[in-house]
């Protein structure tokens, strides 16, 4: 599998040269390349054996001769965390090529070349198993996107591109320092060569964590880069500008994949390598996430430009992802990581739809549009499905991630021993759920105003535009969105297929953090303990009415020592009438 992985990552780079060379046929060549990459990554996904170990590992010495002080390796591989994000990148690139088909006329060769270079960067960043390699790909994604925004964007593209670039660059410098500090600390304390292998560092740091001050410093460095990338409020202001100004393909990939590089970085580096710092900052991190959820949703509610609205919804949704991750339990992290994929599908699709609207009417203002559903039923159907996915309608993908991560957050606040933070965690959990309501509000309001009601299209379009009225989605556009919708339904109906493949890896990544949590809160948990999981499972019983345990969430059962369901007798205050209990012998048990 390793050669296949290598080929998958670098095929787009080769395709980029071809696209640049093929001039008029650049788009066809780009489409073929991206479809090949998609097929190859599908093979990789199918070939993933499961479990916590990476697969398709390619590991070559790169910098540093054998026996030298540094060991930088050209190391690639996929594991449960990166697998789906890798596949998502391949999928969304196909969509990005398809949505650019008609929209990009000037400099098409360069455009598609940059798009494919960006794909190499994205695939590489998720597959990199070496710190340096990761960082090179990380930075490498910036350059093509910078040019895509700067040359093919809308009116204010220059400012957007520069802001995007500087913002991300500033953060990533600090991130890089943080990563280097990890390596140096490790080689200083473990002796021997400075390894840059992510897996090796994770393993060693789990056994012998860094001292707390170092962890805090390193975490702040990592945080600076990743939080800007995610982006967590209030570091998000580059995002709406970049999204609005970017060409559709740029928005699709920026929202769909590049934001995930930040959240991926948190999960890949911060959680296993600086667990104590994460635990220490946990209340603050969760607070920032939930602030982003509510704030992003509120700002989205007030937007007039559809693209800005979706950009702010991204701020809100990424807040959800990170909330799950920072809940530091299995449910939370699996929900959070799955939600990264879900957000990529839904928001990538939504940006694509906005691009299709813009191509037809040359406006993105909600007030300029109305009642499109009648003339553009296919466009409307896709928009409704993508919106419903985005607002987490059950049966679609968004619900699965949202439900799991919120459940994880609730478990943290109520059952996992919140260790002195119970009250604030509970407020955070409830606020996060309220973000779901706001999410439905701004999305449906936009959908209703743009797609339903009497038809309204901008007048100037009719005067200046082509003579024929704009048509409903073409086969190409339907195919692009259909690709996404397939996965939206698949994840919604059978999430197990996706969860099972990421579960062992995430358990391994989470372990240091949950140990750190136990370490830090051992005193608090021990002193002020409440049974995390009331022993109702074991069939212990207490009087039903008026049971009032020590606290609202304390153990409701008076006596836990009896084995379950043996020697059962209805307690006098139980509302079960004795005859019912007596007939229990004949009760149907499956």
């Amino acid at each position, binding site marked *: 599998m390793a050669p296949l992985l290598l080929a998958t990552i670098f095929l787009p780079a080769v395709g980029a040269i071809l696209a640049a060379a093929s001039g008029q046929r650049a788009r066809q060549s780009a489409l073929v390349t991206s479809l090949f990459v998609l097929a190859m990554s599908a093979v990789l996904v199918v070939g993933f054996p499961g479990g916590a170990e990476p697969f398709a590992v390619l590991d070559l010495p790169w910098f540093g001769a054998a026996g030298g002080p540094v060991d930088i390796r050209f190391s690639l591989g996929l594991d449960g965390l990166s697998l789906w994000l890798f596949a998502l990148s391949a999928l969304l690139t196909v969509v990005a090529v398809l949505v650019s088909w008609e929209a990009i006329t000037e400099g098409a060769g360069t455009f598609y070349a940059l798009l494919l270079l960006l794909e190499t960067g994205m695939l590489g960043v998720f597959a990199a198993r070496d710190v340096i390699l990761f960082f090179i790909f990380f930075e490498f994604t910036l350059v093509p996107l910078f040019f895509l925004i700067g040359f093919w964007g809308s009116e204010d593209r220059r400012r957007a591109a520069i802001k995007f670039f500087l913002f991300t660059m500033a953060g990533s410098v600090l991130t890089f320092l943080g990563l280097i500090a990890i390596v140096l600390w490790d080689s200083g304390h473990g002796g021997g060569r400075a390894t840059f292998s992510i897996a090796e560092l994770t393993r060693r740091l789990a056994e012998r964590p860094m001292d707390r001050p170092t962890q805090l410093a390193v975490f702040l460095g990592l945080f600076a880069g990743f939080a800007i990338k995610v982006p967590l409020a209030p570091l998000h202001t580059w995002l709406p500008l970049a999204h609005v100004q970017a060409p559709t393909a740029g928005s699709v990939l920026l929202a769909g994949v590049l934001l995930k590089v930040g959240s991926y970085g948190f999960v890949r580096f911060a959680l296993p390598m600086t667990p104590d710092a994460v635990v220490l900052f946990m209340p603050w991190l969760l607070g920032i996430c939930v602030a982003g959820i509510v704030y992003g949703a509120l700002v989205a509610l007030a937007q007039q430009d559809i693209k800005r609205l979706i950009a702010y919804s991204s701020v809100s949704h990424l807040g959800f992802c990170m909330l799950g991750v920072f809940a530091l339990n299995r449910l939370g992290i699996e929900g959070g990581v799955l939600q990264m994929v879900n957000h990529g599908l839904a928001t990538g699709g939504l940006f694509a739809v906005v691009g299709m609207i813009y191509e037809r009417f040359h406006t993105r203002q909600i007030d300029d549009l109305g009642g499109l559903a009648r003339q553009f039923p296919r466009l409307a159907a896709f928009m409704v499905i993508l919106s419903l996915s985005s607002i987490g309608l059950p049966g679609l993908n968004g619900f699965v991630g949202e439900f799991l991560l919120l459940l994880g957050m609730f478990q943290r606040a109520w059952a996992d021993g919140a260790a002195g933070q119970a009250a604030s965690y509970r407020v955070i959990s409830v606020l996060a759920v309220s973000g779901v309501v706001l999410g439905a509000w701004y999305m449906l309001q936009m959908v209703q105003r743009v797609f339903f009601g009497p038809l309204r299209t901008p007048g100037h379009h009719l005067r200046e535009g082509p003579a024929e009225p704009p048509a409903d989605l073409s086969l190409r556009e339907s195919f692009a969105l259909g690709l996404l919708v397939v996965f939206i339904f698949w994840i919604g109906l059978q999430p197990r297929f996706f969860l099972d493949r990421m579960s062992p890896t995430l358990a391994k990544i989470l372990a240091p953090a949950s*140990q750190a949590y136990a370490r830090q809160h051992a005193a608090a948990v021990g002193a002020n303990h409440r049974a995390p999981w009331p022993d109702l499972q074991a069939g212990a019983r207490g009087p039903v009415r008026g049971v009032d345990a020590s606290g609202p969430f304390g153990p409701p059962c008076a006596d836990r020592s009896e084995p379950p369901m043996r020697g059962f007798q209805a307690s006098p205050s139980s509302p079960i009438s004795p005859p019912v209990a007596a007939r229990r012998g004949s009760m149907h048990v499956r």
Partner: protein
Amino acid sequence: MFSIPVLIVLIPALALAATLATAALGPRVLRGRSHLPVVVAILLAFLASIGLMIQVDRECSDRASYERIATLWTWAVVPGDHQAGRTLFRAGTGGGVDGKPLEPGMKRTAGAFAEARPSPDFRVEVALRADPLSSVMLVTVTFVALLVAVYSVGYMHGDPGYWRFFTYIGLFVFSMTMLVSASNFLLLYVFWEAVGLCSYLLIGFWYQKPEAAAAGKKAFLVNRVGDFGFALGVFLIWTTYGSLDFHDTAGGLGVLGEQRCLSGAFAGGAVATAICLLLLLGACGKSAQLPLHVWLPDAMEGPTPVSALIHAATMVTAGVYMVARCAPLFAVSTQAQEVVAVVGGLTALVGAVIAASQVDLKRILAYSTISQLGYMFLGLGAGAAAGNTAGLFHLVTHAFFKGLLFLGAGSVMHGMGGVIDIRRLGGLRRRMPITCWTFLIGCLALAGLFPLAGFWSKDAILAAVHQRAGEAGHAAPYATLYWLGLVTAGVTAFYALRAFFLVFCGPEQVPPEAGSHAHESPRSMTVPLAILAGATVVAGAWLEISGSLARFLASTPSLAVLGSGGHGAPSGGHLAVAAWSTAAAMAGIALAWLMYVRSPQIRRHVVAAMDAVGLYRLSAEKFFVDQIYQMLIVWPLEGVARLAAWLDRRVIDGLVDLMGWAPRGLGALLRTVQAGFLPLYALVMLLGLLLLLGTLLVS
């Protein structure tokens, strides 16, 4: 071949298959015959439901409780934090639970290990259940759906969205049958939202009408507020019970499983009350109870068969079903039960009072639905088996007579060119005799007149409340609620007959929109009316006198826990209640007759008197709830949103730009070195990176 697990899967599967077939073939192949797959599938699903009910009845005749689970596939598994749990233990101080010292021998099971207890595995299966409660719901849903589907063939004839309509109906039947047979909270929530989606799509069916699109959005959003509560409740159930299953599984006890119900291992205290109130908030959203009732009247913008099926007979009763399903959880918390009863009682009264002054026939029926659902909640809130059974009994009878009334209203609209304002209609009994007589039966059943269905079920609810009021410790709220219920019964009779008299009696008044074809509706519409009218006449008395419904429902695991006391054959205790409620209904009917048939003089006087005390305005303006929400919630939130947007653009982004100014000063010094060409920065960055690596290599 048609065993219980097969049937329980077959019922929703049929609906789903029909939906897919209609969606695929409707627009091109079936066109005007798009109803065929859906009607056939619902008919088969109805027969399967009957078969299921018969088998369940046979199975549970000798058992205290009965449930049968059919698991289709595992939806998701997330293992618990076993590792974290062990570490917790090792690090813990080893103290006993709540500071009590450990007893010897308790160590492993109860003491220190309790805090080390790992969080349970999260495992959700797509599991369907067959038990008396779900089979009753299935029969009700498929029966009404069948009649509505047949009716729609006539009603929706020629509509450009014909196939779309039947696709949505099929999707709804699928979702609703799944909802009532789901066997875990997650699946319940999934289909809870799915029926909400169908409702959203069908309310906005004529989406070119701005009102319809706005009403659809409003319904979805108000329901989202309810779902917010429901979701919180589900999350709390998970953190409390460590399971979302209703039934017991190999992994442990379910939340509402037979073993837990029998052993009574339910959490108590504040968390129990919190769970119940949050679930109730969800139920209030779906079942349009105070304070979330505002979406239902607007939902009447949808096609009338949809109003009959979704917004009267089935979907809106999902909240009632859910509360009944969770009866053991509510049984633990007396406070929560009282809140259910108070919400129900108040909604019943407010809905009825508003209905008394509306002029849009469908809105009268909508407020009537709100009010009748309030009755059901009142019954559920009365607790015990009697109250729950009575609430579900009313659910069934209400599905018949309210479905009948809505279809009757649709028939009037169909014949009158879409006019539904009762001030513009009158004396239609000669032109539409079948509609008239069936509508009358529906009105009288709604009014609760002996021996029609509404009488028996409403009486059962009032009796349960009356009984609860008699118990020590509960007297105050329940006694008041009982009298409120009686007053509501009077108002109900008044508005029901007011609508009937205005539309069908008096001098004939046909609006010009009707044109020349002001006639009785086609056979496909009148036959369902007649069948529902028959059911309305017969069902209540049969179910009550035979006592079969109560006995059958009592074998549901979550209802068995409440004991089998109270409700059964009509007992003597009911008689006083029955007499009072009949008197109230007769008074209401008499008043309506006096005002709208006998003498316009009295009508003017009564309206003037009501206006003088402000009641008329209050009723006509629907208690100003919409306006209050607009002022207290929508505008402030929109204001906050605008403020946040302004803040984002001007302040936060401004601060960031300001930070950009600082380097610019520095940059002025270095401008000679840097041309400001951005790729150069990238290049320098990369070079620096390589330099760094180089130093590492060298050192």
